[in-house]
């Protein structure tokens, strides 16, 4: 399965947008937190988990998705939210805790929910696997061709909920794609110290479903494998497990001193940046011109800048609004 020119440009745009968003957020997050880093201070307080480097995992999968397909994600959700088409202004406003945010400021960056594009994320590891199975179940019961994608990290592959969800999806032959973003570190613990197998895609055999392993953060390989899995799911062929070897440039959370990370690791990863690789590939072999690529990049950055400006200018909720929307 090869991407069309439009798909290449779409993926490049989604990845560049996510990267610029993350780099922008890294700077915004530090506002008000210098010289003393106080996690509760500044316009974006609390925790911040950035995904720079992991963009292919979102773009290569979500390029195949429609608004009626469901994506569940984790505490590191920005690239998937962007690729799924979550309203960027409302998402950014939510991260800033503003009244104009997706949840009026109630959720924040780990709890971004946008029912218009069926996107939800959560701060509990592996928690999104169950809901993805549920969305797939609903699609099957209603007879639609919608699918669900559940994103987890490699650390989540050792959590009970993950295994229960895979078994249930396999048993009921549901249209789900489980994607493991293996970014090598579960906070400070490397995969070799947490997981009994080197490659989580082999665990698919335990559930009788296909397992795919993607090496080296390869956007086009993700595109192909995800495309096949999603087609199979839409056609009633059941779930697939995919593990993508990816990497995060930033720490687990902003403020993470990253003492566990070997010196030079991040620099080496940046030398093979996936967005640069895709750009080169799509210009060389995809029929995309440098001018088109530049235009896509500029448009992506502009959208991010406008979203951040919107967030900054938006008002905070009135404090007593905290009491609203507990129940439907």
């Amino acid at each position: 399965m090869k991407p069309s020119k439009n798909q290449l440009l779409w993926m490049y745009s989604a990845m560049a947008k996510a990267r610029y968003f993350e780099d922008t957020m890294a700077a915004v997050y530090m506002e008000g937190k210098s010289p003393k880093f106080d996690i509760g201070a500044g316009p974006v307080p609390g925790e911040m988990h950035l995904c720079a480097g992991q963009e292919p995992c979102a773009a290569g999968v979500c390029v195949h998705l429609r608004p009626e397909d469901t994506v569940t994600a984790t505490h590191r959700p920005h690239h998937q939210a962007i690729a799924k088409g979550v309203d960027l202004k409302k998402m950014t406003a939510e991260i800033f805790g503003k009244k104009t945010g997706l949840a009026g400021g109630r959720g924040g960056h780990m709890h971004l929910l946008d029912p218009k594009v069926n996107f939800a994320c959560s701060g509990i590891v592996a928690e999104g696997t169950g809901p993805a199975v549920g969305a797939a179940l609903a699609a099957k019961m209603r007879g639609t061709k919608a699918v669900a994608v559940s994103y987890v990290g490699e650390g989540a592959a050792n959590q009970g909920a993950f295994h229960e969800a895979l078994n249930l999806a396999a048993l009921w032959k549901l249209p789900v794609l489980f994607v493991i973003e293996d970014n090598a570190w579960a906070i400070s613990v490397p995969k070799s110290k947490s997981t009994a197998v080197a490659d989580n895609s082999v665990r698919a055999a335990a559930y009788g479903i296909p397992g795919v392993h993607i090496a080296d953060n390869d956007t086009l390989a993700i595109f192909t494998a995800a495309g096949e899995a999603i087609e199979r799911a839409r056609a009633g062929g059941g779930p697939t497990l995919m593990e993508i070897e990816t990497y995060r440039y930033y720490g687990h959370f902003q403020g993470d001193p990253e003492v566990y990370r070997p010196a030079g690791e991040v620099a080496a990863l940046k030398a093979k940046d996936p967005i640069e690789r895709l750009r080169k590939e799509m210009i060389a072999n995809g029929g995309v011109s440098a001018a088109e690529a530049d235009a896509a990049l500029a448009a992506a950055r502009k959208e991010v800048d406008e979203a951040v400006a919107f967030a900054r200018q938006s008002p905070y909720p009135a404090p007593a609004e905290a009491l609203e929307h507990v129940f439907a």
Partner: protein
Amino acid sequence: MILSDIAVPEGLWDTSKTPEGVVANWFYRDGSTVEAGAKIAELMVEKTVFDIAAPAAGELHILVPKDGIVRPGTLIGRIDGA
């Protein structure tokens, strides 16, 4: 009276990127007696924490309190070793 300076060491962090740090915690009250080498304070620069040890034994005098801003060379306290 032998006064020893407790100064923020030079070269602890890349000041071109982050010129300042803060005193994150003192581990003894002003006027306490401390042993040479005891961990008496910690500094924080961005997200990294540095331990500060007492350069000598004696009575601690705190000059820069918790949350105070520091740079390399800032005198944060003294030990009176008399």
